[in-house]
């Protein structure tokens, strides 16, 4: 499932995938894979992304059951 909240949060800070990747120490392709829903990140990477974007885990990664 695509993570549109992550993409929106990143775009909201006018940040490119490469800039976010550099901040959290991963490759641009990994950020792209997370946004596209192709890769499920570990909690460690999730928290690093949340810190970089100034958001909480709930805001970016929590999925309500349908």
């Amino acid at each position, binding site marked *: 499932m695509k993570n549109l909240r992550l993409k929106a949060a990143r775009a909201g800070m006018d940040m490119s995938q490469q800039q976010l*990747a550099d901040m959290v*120490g*991963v*490759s641009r*392709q*990994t950020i792209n*894979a997370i946004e596209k829903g192709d*890769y499920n*990140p*570990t909690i*460690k*990477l999730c928290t690093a992304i949340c810190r970089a974007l100034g958001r909480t885990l709930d805001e970016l990664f929590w999925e309500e059951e349908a």
Partner: protein
Amino acid sequence: MNNSYLFGVALGILVAVAIFAVIAVANKKRGAEVKYDERQEFVRGKAYKLGFITLLIYCVAAGMIDLYLGVGWCDVYTAMMLGFYGSVTVFVVKCILTDAYFAVGQRPAGWLVLTGAVAAISLVVFAVDLNDGKRIVENGSLSHNTINLVCGAAFLIIFAAMLVKTLRDRAAER
């Protein structure tokens, strides 16, 4: 296989090890540590598995042909190198196509040139050998003269995969 050939192989391995050692020391001095992120480590694990399975299938198939059909299709050294290049190529191409071959922040340009050069040199050496009268098939089985061809083909495949991926990534970044 004569002594000069074995000496050439040993020298080639030594030169390759020396080049990698120089690159590793230079990277360490520049502080350019080779680091893969968690997704890359995960994907590389899958690629290792694929390379390993490829090698297993090759070993079984090669052994079966030799054992049950009684056909000595190639000498032991050639068979070993075929398995080596086959499985390594599968691993590297899988890594390249899934963005897990180059470490975080590493640029593919230098590796593109290196793999292209190795492919070209191997294929040229193979062509020169053929021109000198060396044969691919000797006494009904593949001879070690095919190894340069296999090496060249493997590096050509890796080069092509790198080139396609690099061009695709550039287009996506635009």
